[in-house]
């Protein structure tokens, strides 16, 4: 991966990230609230590593900075430190119990309040989170901030102060461009995220992490959480299960099992 080239002045970059329960462990729902139970130790959503990497490359190319912006239970901040260890400079994590059960639009409003203070040239987000995957927070954020949005980028570059992307489309991709300040959403193919170095991990321990409450950002308790989200979970049930079928260990003849099944379902 070639680093993004430097032609502009120092960019102030904000990357929206999310801590989620480790996807390799089974998720549990709180039986009363139906919210996902969140352990103390959460991980950085894997899809956010790409946004952090794009942010770091642009910041490095322009002598700029990367601020992480997040909302949700802070817990041990393990996931945030993962992104700081990659090289981000600081983090703002809005951590307030009143936020539990907030919908996408409330999340966007809270993040927008942080971003208005930060005034970045570039806001970067993933296309959707791995745990909730509503997939509209970035677009809501762009609208709230009055920014153009370059969404679903599979490739990002910068030239003459403009941001260019290859945006996924239904039939291929489009090359789209906009001037900063701009909001960008990146897919997981956009870059190869770096692994934190030992030095990076050590440095992350002392990097600044601000933790404002909703009151600090001008929200009241009724503006957020289920009350502010104008939606209510009214039922949770198990999906009709699609059981596992037959498992065959290949000892040289397993392809015949496939042939027989294809015959059975009459496609050959």
């Amino acid at each position, binding site marked *: 991966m070639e680093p993004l080239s430097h032609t502009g002045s120092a960019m102030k970059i904000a990357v929206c990230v999310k801590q989620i329960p480790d996807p390799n462990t089974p998720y549990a729902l709180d039986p009363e609230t139906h919210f996902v139970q969140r352990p103390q130790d959460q991980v950085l959503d894997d899809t956010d590593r790409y946004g952090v990497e794009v942010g770091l490359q642009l910041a490095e190319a322009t002598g700029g900075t990367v601020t992480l912006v997040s909302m949700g239970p802070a817990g041990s901040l393990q996931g945030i430190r993962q992104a700081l260890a990659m090289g981000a400079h600081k983090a703002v994590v809005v951590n307030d119990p009143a936020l539990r059960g907030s919908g996408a639009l409330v999340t966007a409003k809270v993040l927008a309040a942080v971003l208005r203070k930060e005034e970045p040239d570039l806001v970067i987000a993933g296309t959707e989170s791995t745990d909730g995957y509503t997939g*509209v927070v970035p677009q809501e954020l762009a609208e709230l901030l009055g920014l153009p949005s370059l969404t679903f980028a599979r490739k990002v570059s910068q030239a003459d102060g403009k941001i260019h992307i290859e945006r996924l489309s239904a039939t291929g991709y489009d090359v789209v*461009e906009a001037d900063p300040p701009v909001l960008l959403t990146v897919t997981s193919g956009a870059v190869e995220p770096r692994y934190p170095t030992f030095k990076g991990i050590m440095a992350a321990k002392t990097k600044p992490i601000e933790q404002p409450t909703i009151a600090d950002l001008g929200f009241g308790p009724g503006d957020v959480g289920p009350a502010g989200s104008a939606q209510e979970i009214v039922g*949770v049930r198990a999906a009709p299960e699609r059981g596992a079928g037959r*498992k065959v260990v290949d000892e040289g003849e397993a392809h015949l099992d496939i*042939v027989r099944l294809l015959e059975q379902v009459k496609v050959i």
Partner: protein
Amino acid sequence: MQTWVFAEEIEGAPTSLTLEMLSKARTFGGDLAAVYLGAGSDTAFSTLGAHGATRVFHLAPGEGLPAAAAAAALAGLVEQRQPDLLLFGLAFTDRDVAGRLSARLDRPVLANAVDLHIGDGEVRVVNEILGGTTLVETAYRGPKPWIAIVRPKSFAAEAGAALTPEVIPVSLPDVGRAGSAVVLERHTEVSEGPDLEEAAIVVTAGRGVGGAEKMAPLTELASLLGAAMGGTRAVVDAGWLAYSLQVGQTGKTVRPSVYLAAGVSGAMQHLVGMKDSGTIIAINKDEEAPIFRIADLGIVGDLHKVVPKLVEELKARR
């Protein structure tokens, strides 16, 4: 009940996802309209009519990325005509417009709907979480309009209304900086064989294939079966297949009669795009791969051994 369905024009026509949503919305009774973003044509409009739209709001985009201006135009229309429910598809432009509209109108979006229940003056949206193992039903609790994003293949597209819709042109307003992203080039990635979303058989390559140069046996298998080729996120990210062939949350949703997954582990984001397939066959070296939990036939083995033999066997039978 007044329902509007968003319809982005792709290659001169409304998408099957749009027609699926219209077909479902037709069952709600009441007034049904399409919001069509694209050049538009009589054929396109009559397809919308055939699927139940009595009215088409026609938004013609310019050179910019249209989402911000389309959301502003829609917000104006909503103000004027007060629809109850707005449906968008899980597609790129749909998501951009729905998100921006949500912020403009200050209304939530309920996303990833696989079903919609209407009754007692309430709309409930069903979505799947935790890789499709759990269904969550959510109701709107604020003022209308209610906005939902619907997953592809949740409903069947059925023509049958034979209506000639009234077409109402709507101009896209200037939204200043928010609308300043410009489209410089458009690229269509052509793929051979049947269309991935419509194919009766899909052969999907996963990370286990191991490289672009190792795709040949799978491509041959797909062509022997008349199947469409698909890939997981890892495969399209690595460039072994075009992005447009991705199956899963960010890519296409498929529901073929036979889905053959080779070297696919079965991450949640992949499963949501294919788990409703008729018969699922999986080949994977890892006995514990999650894909085996939903496969009708799971072959624990090396795809590089199994697939070439399968190809030979199918050839011998021709």
